[in-house]
């Protein structure tokens, strides 16, 4: 498959200007995003904090091409995500974006290996399934079905599935939301390792402010508005964070 997305030599991979999203209309309108401006440079690990309902997921879904904004612009490498058609968005999701969700969303009828294989089969330049599993430290569970894996293991498979195609953009919406602290650390370590080893621009939504320490850049959201909270010159490894 050919991708309509041209590679652009720009240091900012994702650029949003006055991005807004309104659900519903009239009295029932919910302004989930109220003019968000955002520049995400290549290869960084970004953490997005904010109260519940502040619009974090909405923003992430727009960046990931799951939804259309109601105003403003959103570009990936100069390509207009906001104006893309269905085929364009599909190609974008297939070739550029890796998603990790709070509830893993693995295909129950496929083994860990097959869940990853499903994606590598259709991507342009995937890593091998085994390499992807090795990155999340699950080589020995390759032939297990989701039902035979713990929550943390399932989430790591989901991460392996997301990164196996070497996406430029890895979007994680509360990846540890359903996990205990210890398991959460394993998952976050995997995310951090991938960010470092492959150089994938990674956005992680979390409610845990401590995680700000692991990020290159931290944003906070409140009531649909985004603010750059902090830039870490030296992000710390997840394992060293004080829980």
């Amino acid at each position, binding site marked *: 498959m050919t991708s309509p997305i041209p590679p652009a030599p720009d240091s900012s991979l994702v650029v949003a200007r006055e991005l807004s999203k309104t659900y519903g209309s009239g009295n029932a309108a919910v302004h989930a995003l109220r003019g968000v401006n955002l520049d995400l440079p290549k290869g960084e690990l970004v953490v997005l904090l904010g109260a519940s309902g502040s619009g974090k997921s909405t923003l992430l*879904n727009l960046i990931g091409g799951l939804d259309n904004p109601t105003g403003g612009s959103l570009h990936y490498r100069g390509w207009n995500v906001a104006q893309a058609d269905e085929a364009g968005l599909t190609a974008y999701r297939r070739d550029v974006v890796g998603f990790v969700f709070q509830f893993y969303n693995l295909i129950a009828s496929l083994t860990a290996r097959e869940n990853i294989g499903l994606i590598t089969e259709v991507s342009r330049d995937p890593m091998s399934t085994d390499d992807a599993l090795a990155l999340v430290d699950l080589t020995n569970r390759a032939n297990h079905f989701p039902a035979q894996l713990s929550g943390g293991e399932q989430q790591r498979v989901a991460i392996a599935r997301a990164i196996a195609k070497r996406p430029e953009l890895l979007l994680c919406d509360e990846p540890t939301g359903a996990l205990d602290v210890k398991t959460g650390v394993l998952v976050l370590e995997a995310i951090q390792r991938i960010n470092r080893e492959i150089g994938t621009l990674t956005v992680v939504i979390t409610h845990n402010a401590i995680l700000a320490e692991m990020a290159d850049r931290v944003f906070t959201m409140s009531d649909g508005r985004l603010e750059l909270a902090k830039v870490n010159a030296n992000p710390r490894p997840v394992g060293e964070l004080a829980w």
Partner: protein
Amino acid sequence: MELLDLKLLRDLKALKSQAFAVALVMACGLAMMIMTRSLIRSLDQARDGYYEKHRFAEVFAGLKRAPDSTREKLAAIPGVAAVETGVEVSVTLDLPDLLEPASGLINAVPDRRPTILNKLYLRRGNLLEGSSRLEVLVSEAFAEANALNPGDPIAAILNGRRLELRIAGIVLAPQYVFEARPGSALPDNKTFGIFWMREQELAEAFNLEGAFNTLALSLAPGASEPEVIAEVDRILEPYGGLGAYGRSEHPSNIRVDDEIRVLDGLSFGFPLVFLSVAAFMTHSVMSRQIALQREQIAILKAFGFANRTIAWHYIKFALLIVIVGTSLGTLGGFIFGLKLVDMYHLFFRFPRLEFVPATGAIIGALIASSAAALIGVAGAVLKVVKLSPAEAMRPEPPASFRPAIAERLGFSKWLTVSLRMALRNVERKPWQAIFTTVALAMATGILIIPNAFRDGVRHILDFQWDVVQRQTVTVSLVEPGPMRAAHDFSQLPGVVLAEPFRTVPIEMVSGQRSRRLALHGIVKDADLNRVMGQDNLPLQLEQSGLIISEALGDSLEVRPGDLVTINVLQGKRRSITIPIGGFSQDFAGIASFMELHALNRLLGEGDRITGAFISVAGGQWEAFLRELKETPQASGVVIKNAMRQSFRKTTAESIGLIQVIYSSFATIVAFGIVYNSARIALSERARELATLRVLGFSQGDVGSILVGELVVLAAIALPLGLWIGSGMASLLIQSINTETVRLPLVLSASNYAYATLVITLATAISALIACRKLNQLDLVGALKATE
């Protein structure tokens, strides 16, 4: 509780197209049931009322001639309530507008006493009032077919004398609800009619003064019909009695009873299939709904709602579907019932035939569909009851899967990922896959049945009349004549071939069972009217062999090789016991055949014939008929194409209408089933497919996974359905086949092609709708929902 009802309405709205599909399937089944049950009631009421009011007799007999004094002997038979004797003779008519000769029966209307039994119903005109002579009453069916009205002249040849008569009135009689030539199962209202004249005039013309040749009796309560019949036969024996019989052998009455029997067969089997399908659909919709609402149910339970309340909530959901289905079904049943009643007017002549809604059937329908829905919902509701609130509050763990059998056998490398998903899904929930396949197979199967009716009728119309009966016309003589008569016929213009036959009334007896019918003697290597065997090949009539209709064999409980006794009811009234040589393949009425010479030897009256089968060259048809009309020996004329036309207009039309109704229903139901299956599949896979979309699969990719499963199941179901349908068609045709009309089981390629086409189309359209729904799926929303 009101909020729970609000939830009910919202759920129903969300599931409206599926709920409607279920209701529609239910409605189709119920409409058939209500339609047929109402028709049965309509016919039943019309018949019973008519029989009672016009005093339809209970025992009937024909004879050659008995003096009026015999009446007292007959009236004295214990158990006889009333005696009606009369004169009935055959007549040839000359209708100016009709090319072919018409014939009929003339009955006597007593002058000096009132009619006691089989009273006439006057439709128009008057009942031979005053003293005017040369007037007749005409049966309505014949009058309508030939556009005759009171006051019209009509020329008749009575006992060789041509009389110019005038029509006084148009009438109906309870013994002629169904009007057909004696011995014929099919009506031919254009060339055969029933007439009534003053007894005096008729008796004079036929030298039957002070005598009678037909008899009708009514029985006192508690009288034994067989005993009366035996006594009547004994009394009439010296007067050329043709054997007395009860209503169960009365041709018109049999025809009405048979129609009711057909409706009875239709009112049960087919609707039952539909209702079972509706039950299954209710089950699949409700199970799915409850699986989706697991958490909601748990929350309701956690908040203290009783199991009963929640179960009732879902049962109400099913009952709402039932209410919609029953209302639609009742409406449909009435509409189609009214249409069919209109059609019954064409061949059943009642003073009044009104559509009588079968209220019992509607209540039965409500109960049946509620039962179907409750059976369907029971399993699903049981799950609700068992669900512990705590268990349900947790998100459902991922379903456990394992490699499919095919993979365990080492075929993995040939399987694509989506095929693996499909196979494993099937293996994890084999019952669901089996149910869906069976439902799809049923959808295919029910399409076969109505078209099998149509093909059976077509087979009769084409094969029977073109291959079996190759004569153009059957001409019978006024009275048995010499072989030479056949030769005379062959001299008429255009005659290619004339084959003589002899027909005698007989009684065929085997043990306690007996039937009165005609025995036909036909030539050995017949070219025209041939007797077909079970394998659809002409049977060779051996010198002494007896061939009978299979239906007669069934009725007498005999098989080829068994002995039967034949009592000839005419002439020397000989009896003979002979083995049955074989069964003939015929479709209407009962008949028996012997080789002509063998029959004549049995009768011992020399080489005599009663008529001939004649084939006439196309170009000379009119000349032939013109001459035939002038031939005094020819009485009855049966024109093959007229019979075919009549069959087409009556049996074929009624079966045709039922076929169209049922076929439309079956098509609707097939669509409903396939659509429902597609929607269930979509609902079950929505989350998974949405995930795939998010991961970068195109709409086409995920669509093909969804459609792939449906197509695989439909592909398995299709041959299975054709097979099941063939079986059901065979059963149903057997159940509605009666002695008057028997449909052969014909399963044509076009029937199978239609079923395949409908299922393919239904699958394609349902797949398209499912794909459209899939494309409209809110990706973010589908990911949020945790099932």
